[in-house]
């Protein structure tokens, strides 16, 4: 909680710290009449001391009011955020599932085949993908699978031409098809970290005595690997979940832009071009809250999985 307060302060300061007439920035290129200028000033509280501004902002934020968008005036920022949230969650959730699901599986595979060709090639492939800019990979995949092979759609979340009478199943399928390319892009550039963590963790655990003891009892190798070794090698990967969220969120800004996916990342990117500060601030806060939540979830996971943490 305290961390969140710090974040809010930071973000607020950053915004107000920037040089130039705030009103000028707020109005952008549009012509503003004197009344509009006064109204804007009053609305955004610019003519008040910083402390008052900040207090107003915080009290407003706690009540769910994050101000009003400039670009989409007078739509409230919170409404905008909420409208984009489902798409972001869908993409983000899918990517997390894929990244950690495949990342863990491949990491285990690497550990088991340590030093052999499969291990080395998986490392090389994942490192190469990790080095690619997500937006570039997205473009390449879009070009190849969408345009060249005409297999998958490359824009937005669903087909705008789909009739209103289309069945529920068709709709879901449509969204899934649109989800594939952006999700695969984001997963590809992130998976290296999970694979590496899992591999390292499992290799360390496999060296421990209780693994040898389990084998000595005649347990099947699969049981030794998964029930005994992997169960103990999960912990660093759980920790990674908390660390990874900020990076995932950042990556989504680019990928959503490339694929025109209507999520928070795309909103933030557009808002920057339009100099829509309330929206940028709002997205930054929401996204930070998500990150903090992720950390809490990771802690909860530790608590559930590790009895030593439970009894500490």
């Amino acid at each position, binding site marked *: 909680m305290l961390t969140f307060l710090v974040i809010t302060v930071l973000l607020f300061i950053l915004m107000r710290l920037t040089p130039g007439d705030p009103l000028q920035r707020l109005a952008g290129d549009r012509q503003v009449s004197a009344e509009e200028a006064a109204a804007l000033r009053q609305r955004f509280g610019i003519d008040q001391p910083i402390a008052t501004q900040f207090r107003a902002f915080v009290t407003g934020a706690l009540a769910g009011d994050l101000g009003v968008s400039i670009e989409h005036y007078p739509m409230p920022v919170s409404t905008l955020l909420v409208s984009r949230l489902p798409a972001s969650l869908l993409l983000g959730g899918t990517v997390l599932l894929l990244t950690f699901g495949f990342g863990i599986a491949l990491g285990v595979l690497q550990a088991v085949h340590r030093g052999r060709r499969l291990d080395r090639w998986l490392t090389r492939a994942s490192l190469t993908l990790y080095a690619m800019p997500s937006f570039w990979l997205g473009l390449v995949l879009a070009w190849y699978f969408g345009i060249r092979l005409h297999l998958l759609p490359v824009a937005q979340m669903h087909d705008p031409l789909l009739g209103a009478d289309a069945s529920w199943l068709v709709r879901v399928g449509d969204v899934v098809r649109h989800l594939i390319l952006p999700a695969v892009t984001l997963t590809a550039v992130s998976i290296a970290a999970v694979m590496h963590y899992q591999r390292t963790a499992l290799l360390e655990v496999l060296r421990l*005595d*209780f693994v*040898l*003891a389990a084998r000595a009892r*005649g347990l099947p190798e699969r049981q030794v690997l998964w*029930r005994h070794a992997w169960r103990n090698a999960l912990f660093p990967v759980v920790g990674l979940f908390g660390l990874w969220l900020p990076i995932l969120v950042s990556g989504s800004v680019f990928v959503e832009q490339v694929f025109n996916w209507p999520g928070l990342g795309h909103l933030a990117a557009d808002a920057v071009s339009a100099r829509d500060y309330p929206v940028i601030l709002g997205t930054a806060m929401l996204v930070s809250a998500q990150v903090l939540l992720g950390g809490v979830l990771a802690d909860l996971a530790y608590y559930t999985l590790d009895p030593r943490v439970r*009894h500490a």
Partner: protein
Amino acid sequence: MTALLEVEDLRITFATRSGTSHPVDGVSFSVARGELLALVGESGCGKSLTALALLRLIPPPGQIVPGSAIRLEGTDVLALGAAELRSIRGRRIGMIFQDPMTSLNPVFTVADQISESVRAHQRVSKSAARVRALELLQEVGIPDPVERLDNYPHQMSGGMRQRVMIAIALASEPELLIADEPTTALDVTVQAQILELLDRLRAARGMAILLITHDLGIVAGRADRVAVMYAGRLVEEATTAELFARPSHPYTKGLLASVPRITGAVTRLQPIAGTVPAPTAWPAGCRFHPRCPASLPRCADDDPPALAVGDSHRMRCWLAASGPS
């Protein structure tokens, strides 16, 4: 009486950066049913590796050299397939390790781990296995076994964890229990308790025990026979009484002399001169000769075979050829 376990000319090699290492280099011994054989030696002599070899648990890049033989009541352990090997591990031969904290899985309860062992080799239901786990906890002398069933390893003391390990090992009624330094990580008082427990279990179940240790002190009065290991080989082997009464190999004598005694006159401790050689470069001739206070000229060139010294008492030393010292 046919031996339960027979080991013949066991050799283990490791490929290391500084050349091939031969940590176990021709070890032969046997264990009879219900017998307690103590395998004694300093760290680095190869005794733990010998124990692991019995269950074919040598970690790579270690390898058992072809020509070695390990027979469990006639069955060649080294020729077994994976499934048959698993049926021996835990079922006919059980093993307990030195450090009970790291030998138990920290995320599973005691009941889980014992039941898993029970169900590994017998078709029983989970509840039946849990009942069996409780019985085993009682058998190994854990107080309040019902509560302890759902404890995690980190909630128990070292001595109790070792008892749990023994319980796990006993779950499938093994005929031979390998105990690799079972008391080294424990307090002295607890050590005695664990050793008594092992004695009791041996008597009650007719189970043979291969006790591996560096501490000659715990061997007296408990083991039926003792084998002393040095530099990858057995240098002396005898019944316990015989070994303590008439230690013959200079290394054995050195070991006994370096054990501090509470009773008797206080004299200076006699360490054995020199250090243990590296397994990549065993000395030529008799491996102990560089440190031996009684070495003869031929010891530097000729490696002594196992020679008889008395009734069921053998040693690898040229002094045996010239008569007992």
